[in-house]
């Protein structure tokens, strides 16, 4: 029975979280009905397809009417049109601003401009996110960016205050805004193994150490722009590599400290000058906007790749960096301890995370290889057991959605990962899989 008109309005607005998610994910009404039918709501409630369709339409309409309010979440709290309990409001906002990690990874560091918006269909196709959902997410980034751009005070707090997001989500948005503003390059092949969360972590470090806000918390854009003075000061660090004495002194201090604590001491000793030169050069070049953008690629090329070829473990890297950092304090002739600390705090933690991820992703790619190799024979890249959990059995919506796009995969592979969000991880997988595994370095 198709209705000419069919509406249902409750005094307290009725919203089904599942349908909301489908709407956010950009499903058409008919697709959403299909997904719900497969999800088994019908049997549960003795409903028919008609009922489901009518319900879905109603909800979609409600969400569309709400969308305008969601664009400025503070309005949702004092508007009169919909009576929504506060916890539901929070849910609506949070979910509306939640993004797919796979999608954000693609636009991270890009200018949030019309040009990028035009490419959304490509990104959508690549990440398996519907165009509608891509647009919503992109517009969210843009909207947040626009609002906080002109505000004083701490970035995270501003986002938190203006968009009523949870702390976690506000931090993520801060990272997105920060990356978009500074246009960090994240799309290079060598950085592909990094997830959004890895960058978000780095962004957090950068914001709290390198921006204007790190020293003065009442200026405009304090958390968005890097502290120009500081970047200027970084040039002074060059003395660490240019002054031969200082370099040797530093090296011997580090090596002494490392003795007995690692198996890779030799490699560390040989590579010391090379690595140190790399790090200090990165610092010295940061006055250049272009080099700021390439910060992460530089860290990978100048530090992580050399370590990698010497087969340093993550523990080695951490150990090395700690002593590399600390030893500088023992150099009496070196006057720029403060700048050094401010620089190294960020670099140390960033490199750590970058390296750890690489370790993991190697394992990951191994795993992917192994899956493939079940057909071919043996795993080419590893023999050792990986720290990988078996694929979690998930019967969610996502699987239904993802299954057809990944015909080769029987079971979505979930991994124990520090990020608890299974969804996004799986998306990353599909991304990797689509490209035939991670680059081996």
């Amino acid at each position, binding site marked *: *029975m198709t*209705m*000419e*008109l*069919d*509406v*249902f*309005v*409750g*005094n*307290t*607005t*009725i919203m089904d979280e599942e349908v909301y998610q489908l709407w956010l994910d950009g499903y058409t009404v008919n697709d959403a009905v299909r997904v719900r039918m497969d999800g088994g709501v019908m049997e*549960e*409630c*003795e*409903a*028919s397809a*008609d*009922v*489901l369709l*009518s*319900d879905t*339409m*109603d909800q979609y*309409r*409600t969400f*569309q*009417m709400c969308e305008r309010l969601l664009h400025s979440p503070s*309005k949702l*709290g*004092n*508007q*009169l*049109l*919909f*009576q929504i*309990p*506060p916890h539901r409001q929070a849910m609506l906002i949070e979910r509306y601003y939640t993004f797919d990690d796979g999608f954000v990874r693609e636009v991270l560091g890009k200018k949030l401009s019309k040009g990028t918006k035009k490419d959304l269909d490509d990104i959508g196709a690549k990440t398996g996110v519907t165009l509608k959902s891509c647009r919503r997410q992109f517009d969210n980034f843009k909207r947040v960016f626009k609002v906080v751009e002109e505000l004083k005070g701490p970035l995270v707090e501003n986002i938190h205050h203006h968009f009523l997001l949870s702390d976690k989500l506000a931090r993520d948005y801060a990272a997105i805004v920060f990356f978009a503003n500074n246009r960090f390059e994240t799309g290079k092949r060598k950085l592909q193994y990094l997830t959004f969360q890895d960058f978000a972590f780095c962004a957090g470090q950068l914001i709290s150490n390198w921006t204007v806000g790190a020293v003065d918390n009442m200026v405009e854009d304090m958390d968005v722009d890097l502290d120009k003075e500081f970047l200027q000061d970084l040039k002074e660090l060059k003395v660490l590599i240019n002054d031969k004495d200082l370099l040797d002194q530093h090296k011997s201090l580090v090596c002494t400290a490392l003795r007995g604590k690692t198996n890779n001491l030799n490699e560390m000793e040989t590579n010391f000058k090379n690595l140190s030169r790399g790090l200090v050069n990165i610092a010295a070049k940061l006055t250049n906007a272009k080099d700021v953008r390439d910060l992460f690629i530089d860290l990978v090329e100048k530090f992580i790749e050399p370590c990698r070829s010497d087969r340093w473990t993550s523990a080695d890297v951490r150990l090395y960096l700690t002593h590399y950092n600390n030893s500088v304090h023992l150099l009496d002739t070196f006057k720029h301890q403060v700048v050094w600390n401010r620089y190294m705090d960020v670099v140390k933690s960033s490199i750590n995370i970058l390296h750890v991820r690489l370790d993991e992703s190697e394992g990951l790619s191994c795993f992917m290889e192994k899956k493939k190799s079940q057909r071919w024979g043996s795993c080419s890249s590893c023999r050792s057991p990986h720290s990988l959990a078996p694929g979690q059995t998930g019967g969610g919506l996502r699987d239904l959605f993802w299954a057809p796009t990944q015909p080769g995969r029987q079971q979505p592979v979930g991994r124990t990962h520090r990020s608890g969000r299974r969804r996004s991880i799986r998306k990353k997988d599909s991304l990797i899989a689509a490209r035939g595994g991670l680059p081996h370095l």
Partner: protein
Amino acid sequence: MPGKLKAKIVAGRHLPVMDRASDLTDAFVEVKFGNTTFKTDVCHKSLNPQWNSEWFKFEVDDEDLQDEPLQVTVLDHDTYSANDAIGKVYIDIDPLLCSEAASVISGWFPIYDTIHGIRGEINVLVKVELFNDLNRFRQSSCGVKFFCTASIPRCYRAVLVHGFVEELVVNEDPEYQWIDRIRTPRASNEARQRLISLMSGELQRKIGLKVLEMGGNAVVGYLQCFDLEGESGLVVRAIGTACTLDKLSSGSAPNTNTHMHPSTAPASNACNSPSKDGKDVSVHEFLHTRSPLAHGCRSTHNSPVHSACSSQRLSQNFSVSVPTLIFTGMGSGGSVGKEAGPLKTLLRQQTQTALEQREFPFFTLTSFPLGFLVHVGGVVSARSVKLLDRIHNPDEPETRDAWWEEIRQEIKSHAKALGCHAVVGYSESTSICEEVCILSASGTAAILNPRYMREGCLDIGITDHRFEEPSPPSCGFCHIPYDELNMPFPAQLTYCYLCRRQKVPDVLFTTINLPAEAAVTGKGCLIQARLCRLKKKAQGEVNATAISNLLPFMEYELHTQLMNKLKLRSMNALFGLHIQISVGENMLLGLASATGVYLTALPPPGGIQIAGKTPGDLSAEHHILTIQKRINDTIAKNKELYEINPPELTEEVLGSPVPDSRQRSRLFRSHSESSDEVSELDLSHGKKDAFVLEIDDTDAVEDIHSLLTDAPTPTGFYSCNTEIMPGIYNWTSGVQMFTSVRVFRLSNANLTNQGLNKIFTDLCENLLKSFYFKLRSMIPCCLCQLNFTVAVPEEELIQVTVTAVAMTFDKDQNQEKTADKPPAKGGNETEEQLQFPLELCADPSSANCQPASKVSGVPECSNFSSRVSSLERSSPLPEGRSRSLRSNRSFGGISVTVVKMTPLSFLPGTRIIKYLGIINMFFIRETTSLREEGGVSGFLHTFIAEVFSMVRAHVAALGGNAVVSYSMKECMLMENPNKNQAQCLINVSGDAVICVRETDQEPTPSTASIGQTCTSATDEAT
């Protein structure tokens, strides 16, 4: 110059962008009352302007105060061209005119535009200073309180119920004036909104005057309707019940009535041993003879234009198979009090004089204070088909008045025929298509306790107590009011299954809510009869005659359907019966909704017996057997579903108290020839006569199929169209009011009546199904006050509008109950026989004696608190639990006040502490960009949400946090998708209240639920 109205414009927020260049707005406000207008300053370049204006003062007559709304218009200032209107707010200041209601209106109102909908909000402050007016010829009626609630409002006590008040005003519809051709749609809509607002103000004032004349101070059950008669004009009419109400001090329990004085011990004695004392017996006897109940429904139809043509074409032949329906003209008055004792005669005289002074002894109430309702006779209804003509003189709306007068007379005479002197649960409605108009009125014939009608009687309640009702309140109202030798329709009378002294009919239909004190077995359920009838397109008188010819058949079929469905559910009474017949160009739609109940006092319903016309045909017989089996299965299933396990009665028990009962019942049984046959064939349903359905043609087969296709409510859901569900007592605080509208377009393939019926039935059933689905998160829950309205807005369109409330309840107690029941059922026959006499005594004594003993220490206290205690004694656990559940919920602390809305007269888990005034709002919305707004669905969805928000905003501004007795009276949608246009009119009303969460010491606000729990608890205990 008796009043000063003061208004202050504080601020605006979320205003729309009116200036594209700056993306801002230069807003200012015009405040208009009557012919006076004030303006605020322009607040430049802001979407959140702060005007903080001075107080604008209007010095006006209180007559104007009652009629006129305060009109607040927000505009965008434009230096070069005309200022653009952003939107308006109409504020009804009536609540401020009554000292007991709100004292100030202050809050954020949505700014509403008839074309664009809500555009931002404005904060307004309004106050009224009234001067005393001693002029007795005054035209105003300030101070009369109005309530939509069709019962005595929760924090008041009825001192006196004066009776029926009605008024009607007419005007030309601005939409049809010549000027409409040249003005903008916006101007036209606003003119209409304003006119209707004025008219309803005037109407309310006039009714108020009538109330003051009668000596009352309030109108309850106020029902106001609009008839948009198109070319011929606009009618606003209202009916209500005038009362004198006393506000209860906040400490005392609501509904404390002196007449419920606990000294009812003699009565219960009388019940226990009827022969004990002559005097007691006589008192008892008289009460019982008086107590009638009736089932049955009378209705008539007037054909157009002249009452002379008033049709009485249908008569007895129809009533043979459906004993609850009679079509007659004016019935002869029921013979009154032939065998009544002197007391009874006296009582009747008193009552009658009290009531006969009134032109119409009608009451719009649907729930009554304990003891008010003595006996119920059955449904009375009347319909009349009229041809509309232009209203020539708006000041003398005599034609319309005469029409209604005629119908009311009809109703009155029907009630008389049922041996009743009053009509309760009375309502009136119209259905208009082009120039044809069907006027309908219906109510329940009843006998009322005269004490409420007589001046001062309530105050001498104690000395007057011989007139009190000592018969068990749980069954008294079921006893027939008419003379059994002169019955208005053939019915099978039996002795009441509870008190065994008085006659009761086998089925009872009413338009009222189930009385709180009634004894009910199991749960109730929504029962609907749906019917479509095609009719030829015609004009004028031919059309009207065709319609009036169809009406009786429709009424008959609707009743047959109701009856069948009632039997199928193994129930014996209908409450809240509402039959709507809607007329369209080429069809008539009939929808009857009611809540089926098994009244313990009434005999168990017989089953349904299928009989074939052609006995020789084997295949046909086989077919009949299959259907019979299905029906029997369904009945059995329904019994289980609704927990209907009445105690089995043996003939002996039934017959013993009054020896001649059998004789009489045989006498009546002779009307139906099927009794012997039935008891043989239909063993599963006891000794009762079954209801015979004959399959003689395909129509009948269809009917039976449709009977069986009603889908059962899914587990966890119940539904009813009365205030509360019989059999559910432990409501928790979850409340969700909703409105749903569906329009179905018939394909123009040649439709038959059957095809149409199927479509219509599916439409209603699907609606219910989708409610169950949408509200599944509230399980266990009950849909209450399900109010269906059907309309035929255009040829080939069927519109169904539903407003209802879903309420959660505590399942635990429920389970306990069901768990308790099976053992009782499992008991063997001897036990059951023993149980019965016990129950007979226990019921009245526990209801009456317990309070008496308990209350002794607290003289002032009603049986109310004692009832609570008895309830707690019988099931302390669930009560405690539900309370703790309630306290977990909070009303929330966000910036916007949460306003709950419900069509019921109360909110579960809360206590109403103040009534702030009536909400009566009329909105028009129009669009010329239908597609852009998401089609008709999108358009209407937005509009309904907007209406809700405006109601909430007004209530919040009055200081309230809930609307009770909310209803959507009108939802009229006209669309023209080709032109990308649509227009919709909505009229809503309700009572704004302040309610607080009930504290543990306070009694529950719902007397009804407690009363019922009490009875059922005692039932269980036996």
